[in-house]
């Protein structure tokens, strides 16, 4: 029973590659955070050092999610969801306000962001639901999961946190398309339209007048870009574009070093990286992300049961969504919504949550054969 509960086998080549990719991307993130905040003055631990602490905590979360049997973890999905809904409600009442939105619960000197963890818990809830409930008909496949997701979504949007809300929605949509829908044709069409959405959005968004965009953005996300007038978006585009082929080198990014680029260590860390390392660096980073997702897809494809496959797919979709939307947003393809770049943006909750998700993903792979013990 012990080795059913606790996986104690040694690591194989796949695990090493997977873990190496995760830590490589994390290191690039720390480097970029260091570069943009290295002249940080004032008291307190520097951002890059705090990020290293988050990564260490994230590693603990990664290991916990890796060694516990994911079936047992999934069984905790509903209680966990109730807890996170309570926390989301607490944020609205007690939360710390920053940039016009209440997203954080202060814990000592740190701030805990429940909406980040809500995403992973939603994946667990939906995977658990689809793997347990006999699915007959439209109601059980689409409506009930939708109702499960709705309270979380509403609480997140109330903060308001458009970025997390969109990620939440994306997780639901992805799970729905991969397992919920019977019609393959419909699924394919929806999936493609979701993927092409950025480009359709660009055309749509581009055709609006500035003031219209501002009104829309002020409506959906008043927290972001308080100066308005597309200042952040422009500065981010300038930062990326100015990197050209080879980049300006470490500390060479004037956009970020001189603070023209806002939020250089959090949501716009990609712009900082792009300015300093250029198109070559950016290509390398994209390849790292694609490789990580490719390995994750491998895990999903070889999952031994539906729960494992669904967990893997959910986590992959969440990761893909965040990476694509964040880079798209910094590159001026989307309006600016506050979605951090997984594994790179500074932030405790997001880093710990992402690493926990990847731990769970590797968990699915490592339980592939345990059934036959």
């Amino acid at each position, binding site marked *: 029973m012990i080795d059913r509960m606790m996986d104690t086998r040694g690591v194989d080549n796949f695990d090493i590659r997977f873990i190496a990719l995760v830590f490589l991307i994390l290191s690039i993130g720390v480097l970029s955070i260091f570069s943009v905040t290295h002249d940080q003055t004032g008291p307190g631990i520097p951002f890059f050092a705090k990020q290293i602490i988050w990564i260490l905590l994230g590693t603990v979360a990664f290991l916990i999610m890796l060694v516990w049997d994911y079936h047992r973890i999934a069984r905790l999905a509903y209680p966990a969801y109730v807890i996170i809904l309570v926390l989301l409600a607490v944020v609205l009442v007690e939360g710390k306000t920053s940039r016009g939105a209440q997203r954080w619960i202060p814990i000592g000197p740190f701030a805990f962001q429940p909406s980040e963890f809500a995403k992973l818990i939603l994946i667990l809830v939906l995977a658990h639901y689809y793997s347990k409930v006999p699915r007959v008909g439209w109601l059980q496949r689409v409506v009930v999961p939708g109702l499960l997701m709705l309270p979380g979504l509403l609480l997140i949007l109330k903060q308001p946190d458009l970025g997390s809300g969109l990620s939440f929605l994306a997780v639901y949509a992805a799970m729905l398309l991969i397992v919920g829908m019977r019609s393959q044709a419909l699924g394919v069409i929806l*999936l493609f339209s979701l993927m092409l959405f950025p480009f359709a959005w660009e055309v749509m968004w581009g055709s609006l007048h500035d003031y219209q965009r501002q009104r829309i953005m002020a409506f959906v996300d008043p927290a972001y870009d308080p100066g308005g007038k597309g200042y952040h978006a422009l500065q981010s585009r*300038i930062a*990326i574009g*100015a990197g050209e082929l080879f980049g300006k080198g470490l500390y060479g990014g004037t956009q970020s070093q001189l603070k*023209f680029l806002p939020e250089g260590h959090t949501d716009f860390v990609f712009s900082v990286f792009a300015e300093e390392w250029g198109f070559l660096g950016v290509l390398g980073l*994209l390849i790292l992300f694609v490789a990580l997702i490719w390995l994750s897809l491998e895990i999903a*494809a070889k999952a031994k*049961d539906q*729960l494992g496959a669904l967990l893997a*797919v959910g986590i992959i979709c969440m990761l893909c969504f965040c990476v694509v939307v964040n880079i798209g947003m910094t590159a001026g393809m989307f309006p600016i919504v506050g979605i951090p770049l997984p594994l790179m943006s500074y932030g405790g909750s997001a880093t710990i949550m992402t690493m926990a998700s990847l731990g769970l993903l590797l968990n699915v792979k490592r339980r592939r054969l345990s059934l036959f013990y």
Partner: protein
Amino acid sequence: MASIGLHDSELGEVQRRLAVLRIGLLLVVALLAFRLWHLQIREGPYYRDLSENNRTRSVTLEPARGLIYDRQGVLLANNVPSFSLYVALEDVKDREALINALTNLIGLDPAVVQKKLTGRGGKQLPRKIKDRLTLREATLIESHRLDLPGVMIQVESQRNYPGGVTAAHLLGYVGEVSAEQLEKPEYADLHQGSIVGQYGVEKFFDRHVRGLAGLKSVEVDALGHEKRTVVVDQPQAGNDLYLTVDVRLQALAEKLLGEESGAIVALDPTNGDILAMASRPAFDPNVLSRELTPKQWVEIVQDEGRPLNNRASQGQYPPGSTFKILMAAAALESKTVSPSSTVQCTGGYQFGKRVYRDWKAGGHGSVNLHQALVHSCDVYFYTVGQRMGIDTIASYAHQFGLGEETGVELPSERVGIVPSTEWKQRAKHEPWLPGETISASIGQGYVTVTPLQMASLIGTVANDGVMYRPRLVQGIMDRTTSQLQQLPSTPKRKLQVRSQALELIQDALAGVVQEGTGTRAKSSIVTIAGKTGTAQTAALRTGPEKDIPKRFRDHAWFVAFAPVESPKIAVAVLAEHMGHGGSAAAPLAKELIELYAKLSPQMPALTAMLESGAAVSVAEVVTR
């Protein structure tokens, strides 16, 4: 247990759908890569430029204007450090808030600030909003700098005139280049906020004095705070001017005029060097070089004493009897009279129905040219004027430099009027009346001259007919090469008058001071020759002079040179509404000439003065 909810067919379907996810992922990543290629490679240089512009600001470094010295090396114009307030438009996020903040902090007029921010000029260069901030204002702004993005305090050199009103009209003042000036080619390399000379020598020699602005590129952060200097193109100081003026004579001339309106010009007839050029009332160039409020400006412009008018080069007055000098030369040279021929003066001259009176009731009796000049006999000159005719008089007047610019290095010099038949037809569209020649013969009627023209005229007579262009600047020191460029004096013309005639006139002018109308100019230390003049301003004259309201009283003239034997100074004094030249103007000329006589042995040449390096402060000189 592990197979709860698991259906192989469904798991298989889920896993087949992953293929779609893979394709979709690659597609989206390819699109991202394309977008990034577009930004970084195709439009990379464009964004690189934007990022450079983002981080750098150009700040103009205003040059220090050249210094101005008098002929003794006394400093008349220099520069003192002062704080100027600039705003970099690019860094201003909220213009209204900024204007409000500046209004509240240092009490600027919101309308004025608004105008400066929106005025013509490049967007790249910061706008100058105010200069001469007090230390308090500068400190207030510096302490609120975090709330005032784009606001900069720059230390600049501010023009300063240590002598205050001394030599105000000839030095002039400086001010911001105007929008109209910027359109002109000579101001082409300037920009809004540049300081240029707006009056006097400052304006005339602006090209030399203004220097060359520098440019500093600074790296700024997102709030417009300077981080470091990238490039500096140092400004080049303007060249120094050495005037011909001796501030000691200048100060005396101004003191002699005192509160009265008028002008005194003293020059060296042998080279045209202007030794003093005073005009009263005057202004303080320090005040005018500051930024004036519209109200202050209106006050100065509408001042009835017209202090901005340089009466020496711009005031046009009837020359009165001083005109008789050139009348005498014209009469002799045109052989209208001989030195010995006489005219009977009975106190009046009948022409047609009108009698033109002599200033001396009862007349001077029989007078020749010498006596006519010494006693300023009007009838004599009525007679010879009538014989010569106005056009002959006009041609001699032109020769003596009337009706034309003297060519002094001052802006907007006026020329006066030399009437002639042709002039009257052109200006008044009427034929010349013979009676008008009679008035013109004694410098009344249409004739007007400037005090500078009269100084040049008497100087030319003193200098045996060689006329020099009056000049104010004798040398320019190039700041970059430290080379002193000495400007040569320029002879203008030689009068077409025989030397015997000029000698006779010089002799008669000496007689004026010795025994004639100008005895009040007689000095015990130097021989002086001169001519009085009284310019009528109103035709109607009843009762004694002191009962006439001051603004209708005559202008007093005295033109003189000294020493008689070898003239070194020529002086023209004009005192507005002071009555007779002999009593009101002659003593002033005498005092000035006496000071000159005392000083002249210690007047070294410019080069010798520069070598000795002796410098005196202007305050010392003025109070002496």
